[in-house]
């Protein structure tokens, strides 16, 4: 049953949300100058793990990334994606975390770090699936020769899955998973009683 004496906890959370959102945007703006190059490097390294020769390229281009292959003509088969679109969901995750009571209490940093690592992992995979989908469908005869129809369907599905459901739903899931006691308390349940 909801705890009647904690009725205003949700109100406090809502009042903190706007400021938490501003703080989250500030953090995101501060980290993205280092985050975007790391994202490109990791996505390229991961894609090249199973390639022979390793020719996939993920090149940082402003706030986006150019995806392609180094063994094809320089002016063919390149795609630019927005890295802001890939990693913006860090903002709602941080905002939801910052709006909880005592977000930086002892022991919470490790949970925040774990949530950040999982979300970053999905950012890397999002870039990888964009690159693989491009290679499977957007490079003409080379795509036809090197990828099956099943692979094209699979990469298309993975790209969509990471672009939309994962991007929008994962911050919420990580928020609940990282701080379950606080979220259940917000809902009116207090497991410690």
């Amino acid at each position, binding site marked *: *049953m909801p705890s009647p004496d904690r009725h205003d906890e949700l109100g406090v959370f809502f009042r903190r949300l706007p400021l938490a959102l501003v703080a989250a945007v500030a953090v995101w703006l501060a980290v993205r100058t280092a985050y975007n190059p790391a994202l490109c490097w990791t996505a390229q390294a991961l894609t090249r793990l199973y390639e022979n020769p390793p020719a996939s390229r993920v090149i940082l281009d402003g706030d986006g990334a150019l995806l392609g292959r180094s063994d094809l003509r320089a002016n063919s088969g390149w795609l630019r994606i927005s890295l802001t679109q890939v990693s913006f969901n860090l903002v709602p995750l941080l905002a939801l975390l910052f709006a909880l009571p005592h977000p930086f209490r002892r022991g919470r940093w490790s949970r925040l770090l774990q949530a950040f690592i999982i979300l970053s992992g999905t950012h890397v995979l999002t870039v990888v699936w964009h690159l693989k989908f491009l290679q499977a469908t957007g490079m003409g005869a080379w795509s036809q020769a090197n990828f099956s129809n099943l692979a094209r369907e699979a990469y298309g*599905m993975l790209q969509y899955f990471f672009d939309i459901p994962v991007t929008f739903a994962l911050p919420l899931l990580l928020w609940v998973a990282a701080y379950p006691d606080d979220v259940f308390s917000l809902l009116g349940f207090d497991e410690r009683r």
Partner: protein
Amino acid sequence: MLALRPVNDRLVNPYTTFVAHESRLMLNLFGERATVTGQSLSSPRFAVTIYNGCNGLEAILIFISGVVAFPAPWQRKLIGAVAGFLAIQVFNVVRVVSLFYTGVYVPQWFGVSHIFVWQSLVIIFGVALWLLWVRRYALPRPAR
């Protein structure tokens, strides 16, 4: 499911067109002469195209998933799902109209506003709505 072509063609695209028409009605209330072609909303001053991910459908589905998964009586779930659907619809129309005027008056801010202000707000709005539903409506009130 939304990624499947038949679902996309028969549900997602018509729904997105519906959102475009709702936004057109709102813009015309403000004196714009907006028209809709497919999923594009245009006026003599600016134009936006509403793609998958910008139609509010994902936020609605995440909200409804949360409502369905929560252990509450089914009548309360039904009321929550319908009310949440309508609230997120309204919020999304405000988002489209706001982005339209951002494009008209401060186009250099359109990208930032589109990607990380409004997309973040949509996620947070869905979560806040779900918390509110759980706390205030989903469960019976405690006896005093």
